[in-house]
């Protein structure tokens, strides 16, 4: 379910506004109000996973090569990963527009 699916009429909205599908938050894009995003410099990255550990939204995933890559659908740009990275490999870059 994308965010647009939440736009329902009063006749079709769930009873009592309940969420009847458990864990469906995973289906929602939640990173669209971010003001800055993390950019990882793979030259500096040692694949330690501190960004993955500290990310409060579990937005980091490990790729096939072992690098940790942020999923911008969920990243809210808080910058904790950049702050915690022991190699300063992550830079917060302002989102354009």
């Amino acid at each position: 379910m994308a965010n647009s699916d939440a736009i329902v009429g009063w006749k079709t909205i769930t009873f009592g506004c309940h969420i009847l599908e458990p864990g469906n938050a995973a289906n929602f894009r939640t990173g669209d109000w971010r003001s800055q995003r993390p950019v990882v410099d793979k030259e500096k990255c040692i694949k330690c996973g501190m960004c993955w550990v500290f990310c409060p939204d579990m937005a980091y995933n490990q790729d096939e090569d072992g690098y940790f890559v942020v999923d911008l659908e969920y990243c809210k740009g808080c910058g904790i990963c950049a702050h915690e990275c022991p190699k300063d490999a992550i830079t917060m870059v302002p989102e354009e527009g």
Partner: protein
Amino acid sequence: MSKRVGIEVSIAIAEAVGLARAEVIPAYPITPQTHIVEHLSEMVANGELDAEFVPVESEHAAMSCCCGSIAAGARTFTSTSSQGLALMSEILYIPSTMRLPIVMVVANRAMSAPISIWNDHQDVMVQRDTGWIQTFAENGQEAVDLTLHAFRVAEDRNVSLPMMVNIDGFTLSHVIEPIELPDQEEVDKFLPPFKPRYKLDPRRPITMGPVGIPEVYTEAKVAHDMAMKKAKRYILKAWDEFAEIFGRKYNPVESYRTEDAEILLVTMGSISETAMTAVDAMRDAGQKVGLLRIRLWRPFPGQEFRKAVGKAKVLAVVDRCLPPGALCGPVGAELRSLFYKIPGSPKIFSFVAGLGGRDVTVERFEEIVDKARAFAKKRPRELYEVIGVREK
């Protein structure tokens, strides 16, 4: 068979809640509601009622606890009054839009300041727009009957809304009246076990009470409003079923000697009994006066009220609530809105009386009718009048 007993109305209400087999009762004591929950706690402690009595630390906690227990699928009851109802206010909006059918008896009492433990309707009128179904009882029997009715209506899957039964503090809560207490078999026939449409159950997880982003909030509120409007049909149906089993018939608007009446008093709650005595006296004196009593306040029974007014030319509306700075009391405002620009509609005059436990006597009702008659000839300067107030 039901038995007719002399009993304090609060105790009778507690007995009715027991007959309704309430399962969870979170409550905090406050005058004049105390005897209701005190008796329920005794019934639970004595093993007469198989329920959880939760002695919470405040009314805010009481209503929060009610939300939890009803969401888990337990038949839930609480009761409060005045400042306690105000402390619940933040939570009251939550079970209503979430469609959680809590039943609450409110022993109506004035709001401080000045501190008053006595009866009027200011406490409940503040909570008018919380989205609860609201009824008003006139006497002890009705308080018992409306309590049973509230469980039946609130928990009806077509309704699924919380319901508030209003009884006048002291005037009803603390008097001993002859009341017919139904027996368990009859109540079980009227009130099937609570089967909610949804409940919190780890085996079938759902989320209740999520955030409503701007894209869905309006739709959630309109769905609630529509559920309230639709509820009226089931409120009436439950009253019909109640009449079949218990032999007492209720309706949204009660009419008393309204045939050929030119002036109708409009009241809510226990002062209606005095109003009927006043109507009898005025009828004896040859005046064409009648009485309408609003039993169902939310959802407002506009259609039934208009029908009950018939051809009467003047309505004298008595509010037991004085909202400072408003155009008139809430019942007066509702009725002015109901009849606005409808051809042939009656002239509506708004009165405020009976604040903070002040008696509204037969003479006061006669005064109200006299004033309404005079106002119909010569438009009053003010939009409402406070009855019996001293200037000096």
